[in-house]
């Protein structure tokens, strides 16, 4: 238990001194707050436009899942990869941290980032409601909101652990960022291609990490009534209905991918010399 405290303290000392950390968290907060700010302004100007929790959750969580995972991945790379180029990972081990514990510290850092991002989104949601003249409906957090918030957490975890893995495998932030960006750019293209394909490929492609990420971040996957509405309108216009994997399936897949990424990083960390 003492070890956990030591590792948290070390990661804290290292992280708060990095400008990249504050910039990324600040940027995430600003982007997530933009729809909230607009919502509140709208509600103040026009009494018919309501803006308050819990109805504002999809808005806020949608903005957060749009950019949060990307920031989490980039931030993990910026915080972890330089430890190898500066050789501070090596020095930490020389100073008495085992390689496994060094790595455990980075996993805690990832968990901390996920919590921080979620806390930021929650603060923005609560802040927006307090500043808005509107009254929200029943409850503050409906089960569907909770599901979407879980989706945000898992998306952050998924891309964050991919960033951690790239950092540990490549050990240099430039190339690691390059590969992450490439993946994020290619992602859209591949989803587009696969959605045109048919049969088994299309079905298996549903479980690719990028598709899991995409669906986890989509409010329609978490709010069945909204999805039903949308699909009813689409049917009216003669369009195909949209379908999403079950949230449970998405969650298991995201956790499985994260476990694979974190496991690969762990093995590399343990195996290779520093």
């Amino acid at each position, binding site marked *: 238990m003492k070890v956990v405290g030591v590792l948290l303290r*070390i990661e804290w*000392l*290292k992280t708060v001194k990095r400008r990249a950390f504050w910039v990324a968290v600040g940027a995430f907060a600003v982007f997530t707050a933009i729809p909230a700010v607009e919502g509140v302004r709208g509600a103040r100007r026009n009494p018919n436009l309501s803006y308050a929790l819990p109805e504002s959750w999809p808005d806020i969580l949608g903005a957060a899942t749009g950019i949060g995972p990307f920031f989490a991945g980039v931030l993990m790379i910026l915080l972890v990869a330089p430890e190898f180029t*500066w050789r501070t990972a*090596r*020095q930490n081990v*020389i100073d*008495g941290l085992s390689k496994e514990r060094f790595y455990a510290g980075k996993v805690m850092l990832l968990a901390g980032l996920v919590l921080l991002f979620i806390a930021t989104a929650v603060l923005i949601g609560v802040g927006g409601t307090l500043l808005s003249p509107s009254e929200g409906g029943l409850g503050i957090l409906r089960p569907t909101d909770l599901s979407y918030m879980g989706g945000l957490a898992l998306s952050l975890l998924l891309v964050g652990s991919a960033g951690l893995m790239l950092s540990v495998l490549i050990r240099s932030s430039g190339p690691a960022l390059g590969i992450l960006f490439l993946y994020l750019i290619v992602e859209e293209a591949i989803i587009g291609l696969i959605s045109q394909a048919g049969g088994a490929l299309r079905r298996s492609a549903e479980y690719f990490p990028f598709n899991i990420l995409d669906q986890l971040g989509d409010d329609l996957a978490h709010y069945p009534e909204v999805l039903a509405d949308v699909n009813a309108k689409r049917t009216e216009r003669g369009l195909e209905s949209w379908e999403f994997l079950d949230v449970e399936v998405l969650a298991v897949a995201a956790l499985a991918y994260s476990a694979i990424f974190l496991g690969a990083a762990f093995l590399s960390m343990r195996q290779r*010399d*520093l």
Partner: protein
Amino acid sequence: MHAIQLFDLTKRYGTSTAKSVLAVDRISFAVEEGQVFGFLGPNGSGKTTTIGMLVGTIKPTGGRFTLLGASGPKGLMAARARVGATLETPNFYPHMSGRDNLLVAAAVKGVGRPRIEECLELVGLSDRAKHRFKTYSLGMKQRLALAATMLNDPELIILDEPANGLDPQGIREIREIIRILADRGKTIFLSSHLLAEVERTCSHFAIIRQGRIVAWGAVAEVVGEGSAVLLRAEDTEALAGAMQTYPEATSVRRTDEGIVATLEADDLASVTRYLAGQGIYLSHLAPYRPSLEEVFIDVTQGAVDSMTEIAS
């Protein structure tokens, strides 16, 4: 007790036979507690690799070693808490101040703040401790690395080329800190490619070349003792010839300074008498201390050129 013992320690980088490098090849030697031990070798001879294995950042591919009497993963982990070490360049967070960097190291080692100030004081960095590491000169970086190794008041201090890249003044400062630590009874293991440096600071040494130990022992044994004499005369050729036939001389060789002869007995009067009898009158006769460099040249032969270059 032994501070460090190596038994056939080996490291081969890479697995494919074509590209793999045998950096350290079955080396064995021991460092006793309280010694200031110099680990000497030219560039690329395997010093850093050896130290990396001791401090746990590099996995040996063969052999084993003990640290402060401990072995095995668990034992070594525990022993490393009583060791302070640096490997190659000073490794710190560039955007953090010297003091904050020590704060991280202290957190790893489980050491409190007062000790940080003590160590900064010892290496003379207290004034600059609040400045960022990346603004430090190389000498300051090396001194911060020394401060970091001393945080946990280690029994054994392992330094990889602590004088690397420093000017004579900087080298003198590092030497002074090492002397203070040695006086406090610490065991010090330092690597260097500077022969003179090892000769001046160390009580014991090992020489590594191409991953193999070619000599090890006490500096005094090879440098201090012995009854070698340095002789000079007008006619060096005649002097050399005469000494070759002197029955008491066990070895005779030429150096830049003159003729160096090793005598069976420390009897300088007989030498002068003998040479005068041969019609050779000495302009210089003095006891001769061979340097570690000469020992080094004796034992390594092949690497003489590159080493004398480095040593000069």
